[in-house]
Structure formats: structure tokens, C-alpha cells
């Protein structure tokens, strides 16, 4: 069947079993309608089941070996340092700006469509930074950094001298001057000359009402009204970099406490987002589209991961304030979608809503009263429906999109992976250390003293190490800087690790199986970039995940630990346990591939549906 328009509404992390429960309860009328008139199916996600990996397979029709995104985190074998796996910034020489380079390779479906003369509108697809040139419009999503080049670092400013910095946050000490005015600053980009932080000064004056304050600065607006317990509107700031250059950014401010008489002033400042009117690096294609969109739908968050889970985890935000921010993101994304659907004539339309993923990470504990996270964190009865509410929001979005469907339109609603519980962490480096595969330098013991970033490792006696969200790397001679594993031994060592780790029992949980499988690279990846993947990928059982310490190169004292963090749900487990969901308002024939439908089939489905030949390199098959 040929269509003039294909609309894909991406809903990150919607779990099929929750969809079923709520549809059956009559809570999701729009999803249920699609299930009834079209189709609803589970859709195989990628290995690993991570947002950037999964959406890259969606967009390219290739397994990760074909597009090169294997994990949020990659590592540099020359330094053993981790880095963000989605993109990098490179600078060819000192005279040109650094340039963002997408780590997603392969040819995305919108490029193939563009070459065939078919336009696309792509909003916030992960791993679309820097944005691809295309016929149509693209706003980049996950991967767009904040102004410091990271995924997003908030700043907590407090007059309380006892506060220490939490995870992923900058801390600023405030002082209330005798005139009740607080004089402080925002933290901007690093100064290129000396790496110091470039600042933007502001003053906080008492507002017209108690519990309110006015932020005065050279920003726009010059006076920003703040109210305790509320997020402010956008504040647009220009950071001067030396005499010659400047960088524009913008923040929203959450006033947490304000009582200057008693020296109680606390505020949380969002990461400095690129200003869509003048981003430090291009975030849209064509470049001016980001500004046009701002003019059409008001200013919006530009960083790739917006919702401030760290602010929640650090106790700076209440759960309600976090959900407030999540609602803002839903609203602005929905406004973008409607604005673009309203003028969308033909081709491929894609819009991703990823707030559903973040809320499930942070509120999964409400679905499981006995979750370890609930031990340290009080439960607010009014938030029991926080996760279900995300599905209801998603349902409303599907309903809005459905209004734009006509008889030449195919509507697809897709989640990239499901969701599950994260109750127990498995520290892979601790396990490798116990097995004698990872050695620490003298005087360093697993645990605190080993630090992170693999700092404590004695590479001359280490043959394997874990980094990222489930990957294990061999310390391979000729590839790693201080490799000791001879290339001809690599396969045997990989097989040995896979056998030893698969079926790993959790002694504190009655011998429950924590690791279902361990897949050597050759079993799961093929294609031109497969050699960039971890040598082994660990497939955890439901309820387990890689431990917090391993992901950034720590070596914990124990292999197993309870996950007591608010981040209590996750999906980076055996992908067979967390398939995504696919809805269509049209019946789809799902048996073409001889296996169940997978994310890899979506790009061929889109091409076939728009009458564009599917390139032979694509691995999936059209779902017709």
C-alpha cells in the first residue's frame, strides 16, 4: 500500500504490558482504538535496549554494527577513558570552531527519502545531532549538549554552607547582603584559554509578595519574577568569552526557598540550553529552522535530555516540581508536533516524546511497594499514578496526531523499548576482579579507593574491564594502550567470560539468575562498525542492571548491591524482556521477516509505504 504521508509518533520507553493493562481498563482510548482497527504488537528492540541504540536502528534499518551506536558510553582504548557515545566535537585546527560529529553512521531513512525527492519533518529523534542535511526540517534531539558540552548540568545555589554538591550538579554558595540582595552568577561555558568557568552575574531582590523574588541581570528579560516552588519562564543570557566572542544560552530557574531575612535562599538553575535563536552549534536543519520554530511555538528546551532527574535525585526538586518540568516538556513537544502536522503535506513525519522514559525511571518505585528505593525515600500517595499518567498523556498525544490522518496517511506509534524494574545492581568490574581478570594497583582495594574512570587498574595485569551500561572490553594488545591479551587469545577469553558470567546467581536473592546471557560481539553485531562495540554485552535478567559503579569505571567492593536510588526503573536488560510496542491505524502484515517485527523493520516499512526503493543494505523487511 502506498501512502502520501507516514506519521510516526515516538513514545520513548512505553512498556507493552502496561499499555495492555491500561487499554484493558479503558484508560487509553486512542491506543485501544488503534489496537482495534489497525494493529498492536510487541516490536523487538536492539541489543542493548537503550534509547540511542534503538532509535538509530529505527532510523537506519541497521543493527548497531551498521550504525555504530552501541551504548550511551564509549571508551577510548588509547586512554581507557569513557566518553559520550552519541557524538563528539572535533576541531581540525585552532582556527576553526569545533564541530559536532554524529557517531551514528549508516544512512538514515530521511536521507534516503531526500535523495528520492520525498520530504521529511523530524523532531527530536535521538542521535540526530548534528542534524543531517535533508529535504524538509529537522530539530535534533538526544545528543544535543548544554552550553558546557555535556548532557546537562544544573546549578544549585544555596546560602546553606552545609550543603555539598550532589550528582551531576554545580554548587554555588549564596550570600545575602545586608540590603537583602543576593548577588550571584550563572555558570556558562568553560573559558577556552584557561578552562575556568565563564560567569554571568545576576542579583536577586525581594519580590512584591513573600515567597517571591526578582532576578535582575543583563539578560532578557532584565527582571525575571520567581516564586517559591515554581519554575520561571526562560531567561536568555549572553556569556562573553573574552573580548571577541560570546555564547548565547538560556535557563529556567526554580526558586526552592526564599527567606533572605533568615539567610534561606535556594534556587536550582537548569542546565544552560542553547538558544534556538543562536545556538552555539547547529541544532536544526536547515540551521534557521530552530529559530523559526521558536517563533512559532515559543521558546523550548534544546538539550537532548531535558528532565532534571539529577535535581530530583539530589533532593533539590520535589517530585511534584520534577513532574511540573516534565509537563512543560510534554506541552512544548506537543505544540511543536501540532504546529508541524498542521502544515505537513507529504513524506515522513516523526516526533519523539521522551518524557515517558524519564518519568518511568524516576517513579517506577511507586509500582513496587517493596522496591529497595522505597526504603530511603518516602512515598507520596498522590503520585501513585505518576507512571500511568504518562501513558494517559501519551494516549492524548496519539489522539491529537490521529486527527491529521486521512485515507492516504499511515499512522505509526512506536516505543523503542519497554520498561522494567531495577532492584539490584551487578558490578561487572567487581566480578572481573574476583575472577582475576582485572587487577588493581598495589594498595588499592575494590570500593571507594578504586575511584572511577578505571583509575585504580593495573593494566599490566588486566585482561578485561567493564565500562558503560553492560559492555565488557578485553585489554587487547595493539588496540588498548597497555593491552596484554594477544589477539589470538581473544576469542577464547571472550568465550570463557561469557560462560562464567551467564547464569550468574544472586546469592542474596536465593540464587536468582541475574545474568541471562553474555553475548560475544560476533553473535550480535555485524557490519562496518561492529569492531567499535564492546567485546561482550551482558544481558541482565529482569530486576537487575549493571551496577552504578561499573558504568563509569569504578570497581565496587561487592558484585551485588541493592539499588536504593530514586532511579528505580530501567530497561537495559536482556532485550527480549523489554520489547517496544508498535501501533498502527492500518492492519500491518507482520510475518514477512519470518520472525517477529523489530525496530529494524521500520525504516524499510516507511520507504516502502512512500514508494521509495529499500536499499539492499537495509536489514529489515517492510511490514506491509
Amino acid at each position, binding site marked *: 500500500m502506498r501512502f502520501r504521508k507516514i506519521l510516526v509518533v515516538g513514545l520513548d520507553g512505553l512498556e507493552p504490558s502496561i499499555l495492555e493493562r491500561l487499554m484493558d481498563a479503558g484508560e487509553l482510548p486512542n491506543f485501544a482504538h488503534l489496537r482495534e482497527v489497525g494493529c498492536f504488537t510487541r516490536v523487538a528492540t536492539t541489543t542493548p535496549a537503550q534509547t540511542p541504540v534503538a532509535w538509530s536502528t529505527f532510523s537506519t534499518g541497521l543493527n548497531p554494527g551498521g550504525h555504530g551506536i552501541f551504548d550511551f558510553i564509549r571508551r577510548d582504548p588509547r586512554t581507557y577513558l569513557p566518553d559520550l557515545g552519541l557524538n563528539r566535537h572535533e576541531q581540525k585546527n585552532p582556527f576553526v570552531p569545533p564541530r559536532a560529529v554524529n557517531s551514528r553512521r549508516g544512512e538514515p531513512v530521511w536521507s534516503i527519502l531526500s535523495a528520492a525527492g520525498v520530504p521529511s519533518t523530524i523532531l527530536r529523534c535521538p542521535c540526530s545531532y548534528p542534524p543531517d542535511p535533508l529535504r524538509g526540517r529537522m530539530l535534533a534531539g538526544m545528543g544535543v549538549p548544554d552550553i558546557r558540552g555535556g548532557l546537562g548540568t544544573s546549578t544549585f545555589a544555596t546560602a546553606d554552607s552545609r550543603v555539598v554538591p550532589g550528582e551531576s550538579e554545580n554548587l554555588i554558595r549564596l550570600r545575602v547582603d545586608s540590603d537583602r540582595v543576593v548577588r550571584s552568577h550563572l555558570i556558562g561555558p568553560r573559558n577556552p584559554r584557561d578552562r575556568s568557568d565563564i560567569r554571568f552575574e545576576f542579583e536577586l531582590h525581594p519580590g512584591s509578595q513573600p515567597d517571591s523574588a526578582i532576578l535582575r541581570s543583563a539578560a532578557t528579560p532584565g527582571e525575571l519574577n520567581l516564586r517559591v516552588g515554581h519554575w520561571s519562564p526562560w531567561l536568555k543570557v549572553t556569556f562573553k568569552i573574552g573580548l571577541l566572542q560570546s555564547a548565547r544560552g538560556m535557563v529556567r530557574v526554580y526558586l526552592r526557598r526564599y527567606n533572605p531575612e533568615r539567610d534561606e535562599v535556594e534556587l536550582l538553575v537548569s542546565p544552560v540550553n542553547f538558544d534556538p535563536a543562536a545556538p552555539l552549534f547547529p541544532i536544526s536543519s536547515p540551521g534557521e529552522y530552530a529559530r523559526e520554530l521558536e517563533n512559532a511555538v515559543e521558546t523550548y528546551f534544546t538539550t537532548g535530555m531535558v528532565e532534571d532527574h539529577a535535581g530530583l535525585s539530589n533532593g533539590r526538586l520535589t517530585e511534584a516540581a520534577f513532574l511540573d518540568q516534565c509537563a512543560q516538556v510534554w506541552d512544548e513537544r506537543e505544540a511543536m508536533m501540532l504546529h508541524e502536522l498542521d502544515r505537513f503535506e507529504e513524506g515522513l513525519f516523526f516526533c519523539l516524546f521522551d518524557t515517558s522514559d524519564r518519568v518511568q*525511571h524516576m517513579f517506577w518505585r511507586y509500582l513496587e511497594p517493596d522496591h529497595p528505593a522505597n526504603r530511603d525515600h518516602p512515598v507520596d500517595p498522590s503520585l501513585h499514578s505518576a507512571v500511568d499518567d504518562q501513558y494517559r498523556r501519551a494516549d492524548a498525544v496519539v489522539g491529537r496526531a490521529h486527527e491529521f490522518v486521512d485515507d492516504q496517511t499511515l499512522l505509526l506509534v512506536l516505543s523503542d523499548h519497554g520498561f522494567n524494574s531495577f532492584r539490584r545492581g551487578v558490578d561487572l568490574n567487581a566480578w572481573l576482579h574476583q575472577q582475576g581478570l582485572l587487577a588493581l594497583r598495589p594498595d588499592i582495594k575494590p570500593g571507594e579507593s578504586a575511584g572511577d574512570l578505571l583509575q585504580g587498574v593495573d593494566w599490566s595485569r588486566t585482561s578485561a574491564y567493564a565500562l558503560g551500561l553492560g559492555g565488557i572490553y578485553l585489554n587487547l594488545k595493539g588496540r588498548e594502550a597497555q593491552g596484554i591479551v594477544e589477539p589470538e587469545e581473544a576469542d577464547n577469553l571472550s568465550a570463557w567470560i561469557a560462560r562464567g558470567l551467564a547464569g550468574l546467581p544472586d546469592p542474596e536473592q536465593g540464587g536468582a539468575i541475574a545474568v541471562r546471557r553474555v553475548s560475544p560481539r560476533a553473535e550480535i553485531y555485524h557490519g562496518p562498525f561492529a569492531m567499535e562495540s564492546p567485546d561482550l554485552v551482558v544481558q541482565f535478567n529482569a530486576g537487575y542492571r549493571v551496577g552504578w559503579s561499573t558504568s563509569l569505571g569504578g570497581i565496587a567492593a561487592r558484585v551485588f548491591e541493592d539499588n536504593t536510588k530514586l532511579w528505580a526503573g530501567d530497561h537495559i536488560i536482556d532485550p527480549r524482556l523489554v520489547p517496544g510496542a508498535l501501533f498502527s491505524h492500518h492492519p500491518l502484515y507482520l510475518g514477512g521477516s519470518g520472525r517477529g517485527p523489530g525496530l529494524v523493520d521500520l525504516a524499510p516499512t516507511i520507504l516502502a509505504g512512500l514508494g521509495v526503493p529499500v536499499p539492499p543494505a537495509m536489514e529489515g523487511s517492510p511490514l506491509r
Partner: protein
Amino acid sequence: MMKILILGLDCAAPEILLEDERLVNIRRLMSAGCYGSLESVIPPITVPAWMCMSTSQDPGSLGVYGFRNRTDHSYGGLGIVNSRSIQELAIWDQVAREGGKSVLIGVPPGYPPRKVNGIAVGCFLTPDTTKDSYTSPPTVAHEIERLVGEYPVDVKGFRTDDKSWLRDQIVAMSRKQFTVVRHYLQNFDWSYFHFVEIGLDRIHHGFWSHHDPTHVQHDPNSPFKNVVRDYYLHLDDEIGRTLELLSDDTVVLVVSDHGARKLDGGFCVNEWLVQQGLLTLNRYPEQVTPFAKLDVDWSQTSVWSEGGYYARVFLNVKGREPQGVIEPADYERFRDEVKARLEATTDPEGCPLGTLVFKPEEIYRQVRNVAPDLIVHFGALAWRSIGGVGYPTVHVQENDTGPDDCNHAQHGAFILAAPESPLSGRIEGARLLDIAPTLLDLGGYDIPTTMQGRSLAASSNQSALGPHFGRGFTARGEALVRDRLSGLGYIG
């Protein structure tokens, strides 16, 4: 040895090039290196200024005082300069002595194409690129034409009133030239690369009155009022795309040979000389007539002049010129008198113009070939020199060679950046003759002792540059890794 790249922007004005914040690539380069205004030579004219820069020799030492120079002491002739007029040791010669190859594109005078160890592409003095050989070796022309089709070295007839045609022609020329530049940057093994973009000079001359609100002919509603600024944005974009092709071992110089300034009008120098009784005509023309076509009574003439952006004033000296009238013994006294009278010239209201008058031997280390007796900048170049007679006033608004909006300013601009360069920030007092020794110095070459300028790096006591802008986004290191991954969530 470092590679050396010069992107020459003929006529680029420091007040725009160094001040417009929208020129992001220029500003990044400024931030990575040093910059400032650059004192040009006298006269600040494309020929000889680019060759003065390349050789670090003043115009007198080159024996080239402008596009046209007297070839002997007759009244007849001015010869037009070509590439063979100047053979002094240039940077590319010094590079060739070390075995390095050079690419010269549009470096004036660049016709006939200069024989270099490498590639030379002719400048705007090339009569016709469809007929004349304008490259060395000649096969380069075929490669260029495969790349961009017909290759323009100038906009023919740029003194025109058809402004939108002019703008489009200049931009199209510039795009083609930058395409060629980028091609050879990537596909030729060069040590020295020197490009001169002439389009900016043409834009200034064609559109300065539309750009400059203080220009006497400025129309605030002109549809062309942004053409000058937009052209700088165009150049910034082209330069940004060019810089991307460089490796880390390159010294980069963006430079102009002179600046630009508004023209208040034309000063009819020969008309003035007639009025002063220093120039006698057998017949005053009925219409405006170029000097070469005037019927001059040489036996009654003691002074005449050539026009242009500045005036070259000649004395009719007995025993030197065929019908000389000034006694050689009286030469200096008489020249001083003429100089004083020129310096006292006024505008139409009688206010002094502030005219600058130079004696060649006082401003040049050597005075070779046939120099003017006096070099005159009317109103310090606020007024152009009009050579024709028949206006019959001294001050005019029209120009005898076609519409022109601006004159050259004494100061151009430079931006110089190199990895590990000790030079950073704004530098005061840099001179055009300092460029060649500075580039050779930063490039690791010997500086010929004949060069008249000094290396800016030699006099610098600034410390080495820190990390350049943007490295914060690219450099590795643990703190940056933490910055990058901060906020990922999954890693706790």
C-alpha cells in the same frame, strides 16, 4: 617548517573586519591569534602594496609608485606595471629556497602569470582569461575551468551605475575564486599559499556611499545599504569553509593591503595647477579632457600631475624633461613651494583640506626608476585626484573614470594566528612591511636581511597562547569527561 596561508582581502577596512561581531569565523581567528590595524605604504594602493607586503620593500625600493609609472622623463609615457616589473626577493622565493612549493592566486601584479616553484593564477590585471594565458603552468587553467567554468579575475566595467548587476557579478566571482582556492588547498602540496580577493575592493568602490551614513551622497533608504556589510558576511563564510581544510601546522594571515574611507569628492589637480599658473595649456578644452589628450604648452609649464586615488606630481626640470623650465639649482626651493601650496589646498568653503604631500626620498629607503617629484594625498585621501581638465572648477563630485564611492585608507587590517604563536590579542603599530618577516619568522624560515620590516614576533614578549577557543569542547581529560557525561542518569 610551518605552512603559511595568506587570505588577502583587498581594501578590507579594520573598523568592519575587526569590529563586526557577526563575522564569527574572523572573530574565532582573532581569538586564536593576534590582530590589529596595519599601516600601509604610501601610496596605499593595491599595486604596489601587495608586493611591498610580499617582499618587505617600500614602493621606492621596488621602483613602483602605482599602477602606472613613468618609464622615462618624456611627457609621453606611463607604463602599466606587470608581474615582471617586480623581481625582488619575495616570501615565496624564500620558501622555494627551502624546497617548498607555493600557490599564488590573484596576487597583484600577477599578469603575466608569475613563474614560481608551484602554481600561479593571474590577478585582475589579466586582460581576458578566455584568451590570455593566466596561469603557470598553463595547464592549471584547464583544471580551474573544469572546476568553475569561465574564471573571472575581475568584474569588467565595475565603475557602473547598475548596482544590482555589479553586486551579483562580484559575489559570483568571489565564490568561484574561493572554490579554486579550496581546491588547491586540498589538492596541491603547498608550503606557501597566497590568495588575494579583489571583490571586496570592488564592493567598497561601488557601494560605500550606500553603506556609510556620513558619505555626502548617502541615501538612508538605499536598497543597497547592506551590500558592504553583507559582503563581509559572505567573506566570513567563505573563510570559515576555507579554514576547515587546514592542518594544525599552518600560520594563517587574513590581511588587507589598505583600508577604505568615504570619498568627499574629487580634487581636479591639473585644473588647480592651471589656475595656479603652473600648468599652461595652448587651448583650454571645451569639455572634460584627460590629461594625456590636453594640448600642453610645455615651455610654459613647470608642474603637471597624474590623477587617481592620489596625485603624482611632476616638475618640468631643465635638462631632465625635454622642454624643462625649472633650473636644477632651483629644484628644491621650487618643489618646497609647490608642496606648501598643495598643503594649503582647501575645500569649496575655503577650509583647509588637510592635504598630505610627500617627497619620495623622505619616505622611501631607495628611490628607483622614475619617481614622482611629489606624492599627494588630497584631504588625506578624503578627496580623489582628478587628472582631467575642463570642469572648470577644482572641486567636483563626479569622477572622470566612472562612479566611485570610496578612497583607500592608510590603514588596513590583519589577523594572524598560528599554533603556539607568541602573538595574541590586539597589536598596535604593525606595518605592512612587517608582514613578510613575521610570516617567515613564525614559519621557521630565515628572514632575508634585505627585508625592511621587522618580525612582530621578535618584538613580542607575550607568553605562549593557552588552549584555543573551543578546545573546552574537544579536549580530553577527566574533568571534561565528567562534564560530558554529567546528567546521563544511567551512570549515577
